[in-house]
């Protein structure tokens, strides 16, 4: 078996106010996999994500990215390897132009000049936003900002792309465009979402986190059709949606 891109072992974490968010989480994601991380509000999904690049540390257990442990001395490389796209693109895009924002990450890695420009334009091409390079991010639509936010992370050439609620606040067309982009990327993907049809559309495998425990790790179709599991962990499909009748599923 190859070295997992993401290797989380026995991760436990309590916030300073005493609230225990994670209780011994194990999660392995292998290169090229697309995995959905599902769970109700307050399940600990965001807490887990913030451990993947060392924003949160200090609990028990370990996290390693392609064999490199998440430790203080490795943080720069870890943050290159783990690209997190946050839920609100306005939290991620803070500079004057799209180009500057996409360049921010790779420039922090030391890239300069023509190499930096190339990296920026490649990332913007991947999300179909190259024509908007010189526009201020706050003049773009929400869907366009979400795509630029993905580009800001792609520009760091991450080994795993972590998306927090990628489909939230998107209209159906933007939602589909983003799905097309995510499918076209040759990168390992961990997608945190409440949007179960989106998980089924994009991720062959799903992990369910509930009250800080991993309660399921299986084929997405199997998870979504396990009614007792779904009901026990406050997961609900949109009205009228039946995963069994969906035609083609991702392999």
């Amino acid at each position, binding site marked *: 078996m190859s070295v997992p891109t993401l290797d989380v072992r026995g991760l436990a974490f309590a916030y300073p106010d005493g609230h225990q968010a994670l209780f011994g989480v194990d999660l392995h994601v292998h290169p090229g996999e697309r995995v959905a991380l599902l769970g109700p509000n307050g399940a600990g999904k965001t807490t887990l994500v913030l451990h993947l690049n060392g924003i949160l540390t200090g609990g028990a257990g370990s996290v390693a990215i392609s064999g490199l442990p998440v430790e203080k001395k490795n943080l720069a490389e870890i943050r290159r390897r783990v690209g997190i796209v946050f839920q609100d693109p306005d939290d991620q895009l803070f500079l004057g132009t799209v180009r500057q924002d996409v360049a921010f990450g790779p420039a922090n890695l030391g890239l300069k000049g023509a190499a930096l420009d190339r990296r920026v334009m490649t990332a913007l091409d991947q999300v179909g936003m190259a024509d908007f390079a010189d526009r201020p991010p706050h003049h773009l639509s929400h869907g366009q900002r979400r795509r630029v936010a993905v580009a800001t992370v792609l520009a*760091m050439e991450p080994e795993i792309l972590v998306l927090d609620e990628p489909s939230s606040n998107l209209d159906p067309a933007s939602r589909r465009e983003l799905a097309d982009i995510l499918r076209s990327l040759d990168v390992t993907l961990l997608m945190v979402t409440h949007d179960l049809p989106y998980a089924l559309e994009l991720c062959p495998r799903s992990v369910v986190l509930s009250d800080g425990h991993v309660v399921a790790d299986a084929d997405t179709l199997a998870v979504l059709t396990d009614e007792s599991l779904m009901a026990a962990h406050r997961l609900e499909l949109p009205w009228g949606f039946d995963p069994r009748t969906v035609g083609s599923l991702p392999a």
Partner: protein
Amino acid sequence: MGAGHGRGFPVTHGHSPVHRMAAHHKLLVLVGFMLLVVATPRDWYVAFAAYAVVVLVVIRASRVPLRHIGRLMVIEVPFVLFALLMPVIATGPRTEVLGLSLSEHGLVAAFALLAKGTIGVASSLTFAVTTEPDEILRGLQRLHVPDLVVQIMGFMFRYLDLVTGDLSRMLVAMRSRGCDPRSPRHWWALASTMGALFIRTYERGERVHLAMLSRGYTGRLPR
């Protein structure tokens, strides 16, 4: 939902010599001019007239409509009100103007405040409407203003629209529930809104910082 379109900044896009001049040169000229105006003795009326002419000539050269700058000059209103009060409340020898007994010192001081204030505000606004926010930041960097100050200003430019957008949505939500934020009866609600807005902005600041750290931020913005 569409995106807001630069509500916060009154910049005009043009190709006049004033628009084209480098931001750091404009800043230096502006600061020099302001110091000169402030240092001018208050009874040198001719000098103030000359300054006013200079400002008008620059506005004319920038091809920005005077009306546009005039509308923005409302920010000076509180100072104007204070200037108008000065002759009434100041002490010293009095003089009769339109049947009112006014202080001579107060009149001179009011004139100086009005003249210096108006010239200062008009020239700053001319700078603001002819310089893109991004250019101002680059200008400050070229003038070796500390990096942290430039970064803070950059964030202010970037998030002003979002914060004012948040505020206007909160005010609409208040009005929708029968509250008039302008009425003193509802000022307490307005005050809570401001508190909530502060918390939201503070939390957004934290999230932005996390997103920056996630992309390798170490305390300096890359040039």
